[in-house]
């Protein structure tokens, strides 16, 4: 485990600090000990920053996001958001936190209630966090513009939209309360290549305009590199390496990170030949 640069920072201005977080999932069989899916993970997020979380399946990357959102119980460690410990917060506390912490999920088909109109879907966070509904309604048009959706979207149902459009709606829903941090859980993984690029552009633009921070999860190092400022690499629930995105992706300190980088093929035949040879030398069999 690299000690040079763990995921934490020295600055006092941070909006999220996860310290030594461990999460267990109950075993499916009765009377078996629970399975530890996240061990001793620490991570900081500064205002307006994107922290990328990358790993393969079973790495626990989605779990950390879920723990922050209150969807997975924290067994050990702490998560501070806006100065307060939010690990295992109550429903009432979550309502308060919700104004500043939102989520966009991976699955465009499951993210929107098929029985609700888009207007109601986007306004839902306002409903529970007790925001001003009138103010939010007025802001809807601007919000739709920002995510590049046409004006007549509001009275339609989710089934009328494509995957990329649904993600835009989900992003609009996440933005309506003007949060400080959005957890983006594999938000482009289920989208086409060209749509992926556009959604990433959109997210970067939103970050530049509003100063919102992202915790961005993905299994795709290319995506992570395009959007993150700093990166944390996970393997089987533990942090392998973390640091500045350029440093990690150009001069990784750990073998596993190097393997992740080299395993994904380059869209350039000549360079891919070289990389393949290097990969086989470094990671035979």
């Amino acid at each position, binding site marked *: 485990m690299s000690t040079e640069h763990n995921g934490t920072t020295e600055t006092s*201005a941070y909006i999220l600090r996860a310290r030594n977080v461990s999460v267990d999932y109950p075993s499916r069989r009765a009377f078996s000990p629970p399975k530890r899916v996240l061990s001793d993970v620490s991570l900081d997020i500064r205002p*307006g920053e994107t922290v990328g979380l990358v790993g393969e399946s079973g790495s626990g990357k989605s779990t950390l996001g879920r723990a922050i*959102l*209150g*969807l997975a119980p924290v067994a050990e460690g702490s998560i501070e958001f806006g100065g307060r410990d939010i690990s295992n917060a109550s*429903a009432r506390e*979550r309502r308060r*936190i*919700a104004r500043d912490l939102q*989520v966009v*999920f*991976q*699955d465009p*088909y*499951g*993210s*929107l*209630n*098929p*029985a*609700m109109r888009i207007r109601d879907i986007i306004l*839902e*966070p306002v*409903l*529970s*966090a007790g925001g001003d509904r009138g103010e939010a309604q007025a802001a809807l048009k601007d919000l739709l513009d920002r995510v*590049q959706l*046409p004006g*007549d979207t509001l009275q339609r*149902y989710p089934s*009328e939209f*494509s995957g990329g*459009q649904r993600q835009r709606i989900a992003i609009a829903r996440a933005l309506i309360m003007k949060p400080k941090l959005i957890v983006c859980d594999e938000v482009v993984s*289920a*989208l*086409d*290549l*060209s749509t992926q*690029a556009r959604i990433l552009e959109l997210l*970067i633009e939103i970050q530049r305009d*509003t*100063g919102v921070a992202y915790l961005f999860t993905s*299994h795709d*190092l*290319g995506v992570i*590199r*395009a959007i*993150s*400022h*700093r990166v944390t690499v996970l393997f089987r629930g533990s942090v392998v390496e973390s640091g500045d995105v350029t440093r990690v992706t150009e001069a990784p300190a750990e073998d596993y990170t190097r393997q992740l980088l080299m*395993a*994904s*093929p380059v*869209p*350039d*035949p000549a*360079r*891919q030949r070289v990389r*393949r040879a290097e990969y*086989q030398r470094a990671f035979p069999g």
Partner: protein
Amino acid sequence: MSIEVEELTEHTRSRPGALRRFLRNPLGIVSSVALLLIIVMSIAAPWLAPLDPTAPALDQINSGPNPTYALGGDSAGRDVLSRLIWGGRSTLYGAAIVIVVTAIVGIVTGLLAAYLGRFTDIALSWISDALLAIPSIIVLIALYAAIGPYVTVSMVVFGLLISPFLYRLVRTMAIEVKNEPFVEAAQVAGLGTVRIVFRHVLAVIRGPIIVMLADIAATGIGIQASLEFLGLGSVNSVTWGGMVQDAFNAIYRAPLNVVWPGLILTVTIASIALIGNAVRDALVPGHGPSRTAKKAQSRLSTPATAQTALGTSVSATSNAGEALVSLRNLQIGYPTFEGAMSIVVSDVSLDVLPGEVLGLVGESGSGKSQTILSILGLLPAQAQIVAGSMSFSGSTIDVRQHEQLRGRSIAYVPQEPMNNLDPLYPVGEQLARPLRKVTGLSRADARRRALELLERVGIRDPETVYRLYPHQISGGMAQRVLIAGAISSEPQLLIADEPTTALDVTVQAEILELLRDLQRERSMAILIVTHNFGVVADICDRVAVMKGGRIVEAGGVDDIFTRPQHEYTRLLLGSTLENAETRTYIEGVQA
């Protein structure tokens, strides 16, 4: 931004509201009217019935239809028509009770089981299973013996006994919906559980609940009538079931009297069931969790209906020798509801040369999967090859040829390994059996060959893995098993549909390596479908880019990357993020 616009033209129609949809359904209308008439008839019985339903007349005993008694008289000489009109009250009353009791008990317990944790779930489910094991009729008969003919109590008890059906439905669907991302998003937004249940869960599952309640009400009516038929019904009021019993006692003399009450019972039951279905259909935008949508495609795939302004189709043919597989001007379509044809592959021409690797690149809806499935002859039944031809090694492929080629000269590696193995059989057996059936090997030989193949594809302990079931192996291992199956017949052409997309990136690299080795070793041609240009760069000799059912560009792999001709190819290459700049964080600049 022509492509953005294209996305929207597919969805310009707005859906009409639920009520209007219901009103457009003929069966729904007819059954609603029928039920309404029966309800009105029952309420207005005192004014509608021509005669006193309980007044006997000696001269009308088992009489047929006559001027005084429109439908004749029963075994005590009472007017059948009047009795029919009055009989509805008891039936409708019983049905109402069943609906209310079952709805309350079933929905509440189902939600409790879904939300209150494992012990509640286990306890309630056990009770529900126990109740379902009891035939309600025998309980109701016993109840009669204890307390006599009380419709209210009977129907309450029946409602309780039948509520487990609704309990199971609500519980299963609530658990499913509970785990959907849109519910989790609501949780993150801070919505309380109660609000989530009403706003999300119930809204999505109301359709199936309504259908089941309608079915249960229909069953309740039947049970109530059965009790009355057995003679255990109310003696004071007129009941349709009682009328059947009466007619049964005189069946030889007046068989017609059996018909009327049964007929109106049938109409009542059928209308309720049909109304339930019509309501469910009308509520369609909220017709249930999006699992069905997910099942359809993992990426959105819309048929290419519009003629896109992308120019004519390019062909990916080759003059470098005799092609192994040739497609010429292939056009594939699916019939639509309105009777038109939706074209998903349009004017596709390509060649695959022996021993070469041809990549078919495109996004969802490009038609790449349809194209390769047509070579295998594995398109869905509704698909039609509207135009064009296919040939293999020079001879045209028809239906029979497909069967000769599949699993022999042409092999297939699918995308999602776990979905492509039968969960009920060990993986070794699934690998070996086609070797016996298709290649004709003996059982022992097939097993030996299967073990060899497992070893060849990199599985370290073939003997053990041979006996394992799909749920006991990983995705990467499953894909190796499928590849072993594909190469088992020493095919000349391997068709691979996104073979690495569902796998982790380190496993992807291994599988690609395996495919490349196998290809070199056996001089096998590969037609590989992918959306990943890295995979293309790694393994392909030639590339064809598809969009909207057409090939928009084709050429050697080096040319495509260095000199892409078509704007769509350039767009895709530009989206690969390969040369994206990394971002720098500047403190304090953000708002």
